[in-house]
């Protein structure tokens, strides 16, 4: 046996809904009209949130903000597949995920003003706070999945990160541990083609991010990240597999960052405008709308109504945030440990 083939892989790309709104009915996930409307409304709401956040930033009322424009299907499609008991570990660009899970929108605004209180997840949700150091939260999802398995819960953990995040050592260590222990965890890479100014092909020389899963002995799949059905189906399948003891899955959502990296960035320095233009046709909202239109469950007045409600709702959440006022300076110290140390008690007096 001089030269022998001992292992083989094939990396698949999944698309269900094309740019014209045509769906492959053979693999269409089971979504009621009600679900479709819900998804559509979440897309609108997230986009409304995003646009208001950018506006507030421009007005100096919000700190640095990372837009989700273009990535809404990746976020909402995947989050919609979750059960209430599942645990979610986002990166920093997942406002669509928070919104889909029912996180209070006013708290998201609060967070982006630079207020930690905005990340005090309500008790009935299992979503972790934003993780700023890219890629480093992946092992947390692995640990939560490990804990769920040890405790015998039928719960999965889901971690979001970007193409940039896949280069971090912790991505590797986390996925490898998950593979070895066959943990109920789903890794979702939003490959939006950019990590600030670094284009995807300079982030890694592999053709896909999905194929990295095979380094860890589990499956990876690339899905059209602007196709909310493909994202939903892949996530749903992966969550079911995880809960049935089938181990982890890596899902690469192939999408595009339509905006600057953050409000502190100017993408025109490094990215040709044309690139962005070509992706406009792939807009995830447009695609779902065309599909619903064909199905007869979309009308202009329906959309106008959804938009109006979203606008009003977001505005009322902004007011709610304003009404919450400023945090107490003592809180800087109060949450360091469960109980204050002697030293901290002195310091609290000093700043009070």
């Amino acid at each position, binding site marked *: 046996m001089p030269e022998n083939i001992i292992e083989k892989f094939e990396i698949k790309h999944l698309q269900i809904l094309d740019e014209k709104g045509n769906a492959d009915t053979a693999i269409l996930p089971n979504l009621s009209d009600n679900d479709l409307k819900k998804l559509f409304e979440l897309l609108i709401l997230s986009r409304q949130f995003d646009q208001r956040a950018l506006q507030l930033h421009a007005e100096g009322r919000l700190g640095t903000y990372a837009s989700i424009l273009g990535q809404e299907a990746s976020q909402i499609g995947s989050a919609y597949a979750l059960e209430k008991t599942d*645990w979610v*570990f986002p990166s920093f660009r997942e406002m669509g995920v928070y919104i889909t899970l029912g996180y209070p929108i006013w708290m998201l605004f609060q967070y982006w003003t630079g207020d*930690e*209180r905005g*990340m*005090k*997840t309500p*008790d009935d949700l299992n979503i*972790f*706070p934003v*993780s*700023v*150091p890219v890629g*480093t*939260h*992946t*092992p*947390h*999802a*692995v*640990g*939560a*999945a*490990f*804990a*769920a398995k*040890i*405790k015998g819960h039928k719960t999965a*953990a889901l971690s979001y990160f970007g193409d940039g995040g896949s280069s971090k*050592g*912790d991505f*590797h*260590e*986390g996925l*490898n*541990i998950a593979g*070895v*222990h066959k943990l109920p965890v789903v890794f979702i890479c939003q490959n939006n083609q950019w990590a600030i100014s670094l284009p995807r092909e300079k982030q890694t020389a592999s053709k896909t991010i999905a194929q990295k899963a095979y380094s860890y002995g589990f499956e990876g799949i690339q899905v059209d990240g602007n196709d909310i059905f493909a994202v939903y189906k892949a996530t749903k399948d992966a969550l079911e597999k995880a809960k049935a003891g089938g181990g982890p899955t890596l899902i690469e959502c192939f999408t595009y960052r339509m905006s600057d990296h953050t409000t502190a960035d100017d993408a025109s320095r490094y990215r040709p405008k044309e690139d962005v233009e070509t992706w406009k046709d792939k807009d995830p909202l447009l695609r779902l709308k065309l599909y619903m239109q064909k199905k007869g469950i979309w009308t202009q007045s329906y959309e106008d109504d959804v938009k109006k409600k979203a606008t009003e709702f977001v505005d009322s959440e902004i007011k709610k945030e304003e009404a919450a006022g400023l945090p107490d300076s003592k*809180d800087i110290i109060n*949450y*360091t*440990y*469960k109980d204050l*140390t*002697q*030293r901290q008690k002195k310091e609290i007096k000093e700043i009070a």
Partner: protein
Amino acid sequence: MARINMVQAINLALGQEMERDKDVVLIGEDVGKDGGVFRITEGLVEKFPDRIFDTPLAESGIVGTAIGMAAYGLKPVAEIQFMGFIYACVEQLLSHASRIRSRSRGRYSCPMVVRTPYGIGIKPPELHSESTEALFCHMPGIKVVVPSSPYNAKGLLVSAIRDPDPVVFLEPTRLYRLIKEEVPEAEYAIPLGKANVVQEGTDVTVLAWGSMLHRVLESIEGFDAEVIDLMCLSPYDEETILNSVKKTGRVVIVHEATRRCGFGAELSAFIAEEAMLHLKSPVVRVAGLDAVIPMARLEDYYAPSKERIIKALNKVMEY
């Protein structure tokens, strides 16, 4: 009650806490069948086969996984095989473990222990003799504990495991099998944040922890020294230290780690701030050299020797 060494005491604490609380789990390299390279976890996987996990060689991943476990509701005890390999975990400890409570305003927390063998004394290969406790003491949100005897190792580890926040638990490798003492089978906990006055005295206060405590005890003959074992470095016991300094007026601090920005600096600065008028002499640090910790052949020259400790004691006495 039996006379046991520190390895056995830590093993006992782990076993008893696992018995008591089914949320306590162990992860790390070789902690299962092998029982850990120092045999700390020996016999435990047989008792708790579903709660002890060998991991791949990935220190940051180990701590990161433990963080996720802790947030979910377990009480993981992670072993890092030697302190020289904990540097890979600094990001997980400092950017996550220490901040999860604060970041989520109390919604999530990280009740986790990271245990690791620490310090010189066994003439091992490079990076197996580290004593960088000061790095972890500079991380608000993390607690740092160093036992010095089988008895306090057991009691402190119990408290560390029950603590609601992340604890770095540094086990002096040199002491693992050096000392045997009576250690109760029965449950007891030594609170974190309290120092232990090992020996009372009136002329000079000597502050030490871990294996240096024993070198101090060998060096104080002829001095009326009050020896304090800090046990918990972060937070540290300000009151016990101040009370002693006010009594003796002289302080010698002894640690293995390199002097610059070692934990001795913190103690010295604190004492200067709070008790300067009581001082009859400058606070003196006896510490490791400003150099990379040497391998076996030169190991003995690095950390404070008996001679250097005695010199310091004489210095403060004669000032």
